[in-house]
Structures are given as structure tokens and as C-alpha cells.
């Protein structure tokens, strides 16, 4: 059997007395697209931070390709946050060139001549893919929210990450633009054979985009000590793009709505 790209074995995450996540057991194969929903504050971002390596597990094991996940961010795991994902002091194309700059210029972080030209050409191709080639020389402050998020995705993809982590990347965008972004992410997912974890507050987004939906929720509540029990993945729903499953998911919707609300 192939090794899962991500595997959680009895993972707990606690901040002091606050149990945020408990007994998480999961495995995700390469190429899966997992949408994550759950009530605000239940630990979705915390889980993503564990995958990023920004936070470490309190108990249990988190494995990346069968090995303990490194305790700092690395190039095989790209990320797009809700905001602050692009660098305000660099133009759009410079933002996208950044991973090449880091790879080729360890000391001055600057490319010259042929190398620069090559990185520029590749960055422009990527910008074209996300529909930003017309804004290549603008600074992020001059871009709309949707354009900034597209730029952030383009920038992350240049490093060719195996895993892409998305923490409510479209939360701040209006519905029309969000639809376009869904199309883009779906297309990039298939083109680049990515494994995607995407947090969303929008249930239909979760259903329509991925092939798997996780619902984070506390299975036990203690009214006196709300911090005593952590959240788990209470539903792990496979989503196939065919009719039967769609009706299945339609049945599930009220149940999930209840736990997310």
C-alpha cells in the first residue's frame, strides 16, 4: 500500500489547559482535496498550523510521507492565508519570482542577467495562468482583494509544493469573484497534482470543490469548562462528482449545518 502523504496518529493539541484538538486520526493520500469546515474557534487554523510546521503537536504523531513532519515550514508545503500572503514591497511579478530568487541567490537575494530573465519569463507564465499578466508590475496595494489572493496562489505554486494549505483564502471576497477563484483552484489542483487542505466557512464551497470534506467539532461539551475537550473530525465525507453522491451530500447538509453553526 502507498504511504499516505499526511497521516495523523492520535494527535492532540493543547495550549496550557485549553484542549483544542484531541485524538485526531486521519490519513490523506497524494492528490486529495480536503475541505475543512467547523465552528469558529474550534481549531481549524490550529490544525493547518500543525501541517505547516508553525505549531507542533502536544501528543501523538503527525507524519509527512511516513516521516515525522518537520517542526518548521518548508518548501514542500505551500500556504495561502486569508490576508498578508503577498509581500507589499514587491510588484506582482517580483512576488512570483521570489521562490526562484531564494533558490538561486543565497546571499544577496537578487538575480541578474540570464537567470533573472528566465525567472521573469516563468513568473509571467504563472501570472498569465491566474489571469494577472496585465497587473504584473503593480504593487499589492494597487490590487483588489481577489487579485491579491490569486497572486498569493501563483506565488505559492512557483515552488511546486506537494501540499497546498489554504486558510479561508476567499473568505474576504464577494461571491462572484469567489466562483472564479473556485474554478481556478480546481483547475490548478488537477494540473499540478496538488494535495490541498482548504479551510472554509462556506459549506457549499466545501462540497463543490474537494473530493473530501471534514467537519471539525467537539464530540463532548462541558458547559462549565468549555476548554476541557478538544475538537475532532466528526464527519469525514467523500465527495465524488456524480449524482448519487450529490444526493447523499444533500442529505448530510442539515446534519453538518447543525454542527457547524
Amino acid at each position: 500500500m502507498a504511504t499516505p502523504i499526511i497521516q495523523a496518529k492520535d494527535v492532540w493539541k493543547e495550549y496550557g489547559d485549553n484542549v483544542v484538538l484531541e485524538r485526531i486520526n486521519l490519513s490523506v493520500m497524494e492528490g486529495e482535496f480536503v475541505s475543512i469546515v467547523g465552528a469558529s474557534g474550534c481549531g481549524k487554523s490550529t490544525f493547518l498550523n500543525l501541517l505547516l510546521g508553525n505549531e507542533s503537536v502536544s501528543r501523538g504523531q503527525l507524519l509527512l510521507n511516513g516521516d515525522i513532519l518537520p517542526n518548521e515550514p518548508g518548501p514542500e508545503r505551500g500556504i495561502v492565508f486569508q490576508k498578508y500572503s503577498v509581500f507589499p514591497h514587491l510588484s506582482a511579478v517580483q512576488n512570483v519570482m521570489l521562490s526562484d530568487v531564494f533558490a538561486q541567490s543565497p546571499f544577496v537575494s537578487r538575480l541578474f542577467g540570464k537567470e533573472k530573465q528566465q525567472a521573469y519569463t516563468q513568473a509571467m507564465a504563472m501570472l498569465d495562468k491566474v489571469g494577472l499578466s496585465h497587473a504584473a508590475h503593480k504593487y499589492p496595494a494597487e490590487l483588489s482583494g481577489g487579485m491579491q489572493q490569486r497572486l498569493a496562489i501563483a506565488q505559492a505554486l512557483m515552488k511546486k509544493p506537494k501540499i497546498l494549505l489554504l486558510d479561508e483564502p476567499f473568505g474576504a471576497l464577494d461571491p462572484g469573484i469567489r466562483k472564479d477563484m473556485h474554478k481556478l483552484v480546481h483547475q490548478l489542483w488537477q494540473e499540478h497534482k496538488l494535495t490541498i487542505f482548504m479551510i472554509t466557512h462556506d459549506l457549499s464551497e466545501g462540497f463543490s470543490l474537494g473530493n473530501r470534506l471534514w467537519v471539525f467539532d467537539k464530540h463532548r461539551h462541558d458547559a462549565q469548562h468549555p476548554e476541557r475537550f478538544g475538537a475532532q473530525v466528526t464527519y469525514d465525507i467523500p465527495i465524488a462528482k456524480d449524482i448519487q453522491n450529490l444526493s447523499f451530500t444533500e442529505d448530510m447538509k442539515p446534519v453538518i449545518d447543525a454542527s457547524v453553526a
Partner: protein
Amino acid sequence: MTRLINKKPSRITRLLLGLLPFIVLIVLYMMASQARLVDNPNDKLLPAMSSFVDAINRMAFEPSRRSGEYLMLADTLASLSRLAMGVGISALIALIVGVANGMVPFVRAPLSPLVTALSLVPPMAILPILFIVFGLGELSKVMLIIIGICPIMIRDLQLRTDALPPEQILKAQTLGASSWQTIIAIVVPQILPKLIEAVRLTLGSAWLFLIAAEAIAATEGLGYRIFLIRRYLAMDVILPYVLWISLLAFVMDWLLRKLSQHAFTWYHTAQGDA
């Protein structure tokens, strides 16, 4: 009726309104000076405009009888070079230490308490120590400026570095950046416009320390001259010197602002003041 808080003067009105207080001050001065000079033609406290013209002519446009130098020029160059050295060295130290403190916990642990302690020492209180240790030459004056402004600049830049969104630092690492690359490509370029702001804000203190040091031990310099001729109650020289210092400070501030707007367009676009 439009509310007062929503009424805005036109460009020309704003200019005239801006000039008005200065004109009022000058007129008031001239009236007071006139009144005193009528009483006592030898009065030194509020000299007439003509005495200022004479004094400026003497100091700025005629070589000194003793040394053959143009005194005001020599004083200005001496003061400005001390100021530039003090502020320049402070800015460089502040950039390096501030960013290192903000980014590297193993630098911050030993350095941050030291910087805080140093910033609490009143610089003027250790001026005698500087004179004893570094002598009465240029070094002790530059040192006073550095000790006076550097700790504040370091703390400011450290806070600015801390205030960078952690998302950016994480993102850089996922793009393959090393610690050094994160600092040199992500942090420093975003801190540079803040450094210029820090310099603009501390320039006033830098002048204060410069003039204090020059007043005590120097052979030339704007501060030295003012305190030297104070003995002769030469208001006709002191006042133009004070105005000249203020003008220099104003021009420096203006130049720094223009430099920042020119060099960091992205920053001023984001701030909405380009």
C-alpha cells in the same frame, strides 16, 4: 450650512493662512524692537532688522578678520558633518540591531535588555564621561548623538520588525527562504521606510545633543558660536543662527520625506500618501 469641521480652505487661502502667524510675529517683533530702541539706542535685546542684515553679512559673506574663514559656512559644515556622522552611524546600528532583535530570538535574549537599560540612561548625564574617555575632539560629540538617539531608534525598529505580519515570515519560509534570505529580502526592505521615519523623528533630539556638546567643548560649529557670542549679548547674531538651524532642520526633514517617497513608492501607496 456646512459644518465647520467639513469646511476646507482652498490652496491659496491655506498658503496665506499659513504665512499669517509668521507675518504677525515679525510685525510684533519690529514694533517691540522699535519701542525699545527709541528708549535706548544701545539696547541689545531686540536689535533692529538692519542690525540683523549687518550681522548676517558679517558672519556669512565676509571672511573673518582673525582666521580668514567664512564663519557661518565653517560653523555649518562642522555641525552638519557631526550630525550626519552621529545620525548615520545610529541609523546603521539601529537597523542591524533592531532587525536582529526582532527576528532572531538568540540575539534578542542578550541584547534587548541591554538596549532597554541604555535607553534609560540620561545622555547629558554621561557627557562628562564621554569627554573624559574620548577627549574633547570630534569623537565625543558624535558619541553623544549616538548615545542619545540610537537606543530609541533600535527599540522603534525592533517594534516595527515585531509588527510585521507573521504570515509573511511563514510564507517566505514555504518559498524556500533561509533565515538570512528572510531578513535581507523580506524584513529589511520593509523596515527601511520605517528607518527613515525614525530618523526624521529623532533628528530634533540629535540637534539638541549636538548643540549641547558644541556649547561645552568645540572650536567651531553652530552651537559653539551661539554660546560664544552669548557673552556679548549679540542677539543680532544669535537670532539669525537659531533661524538658520531651524531652516536646516526643516530642509533635512523635507529631504528625507522626499527620499522616502521616491525610494519606497510601494510604502507610500499603501499608506495612501504618495
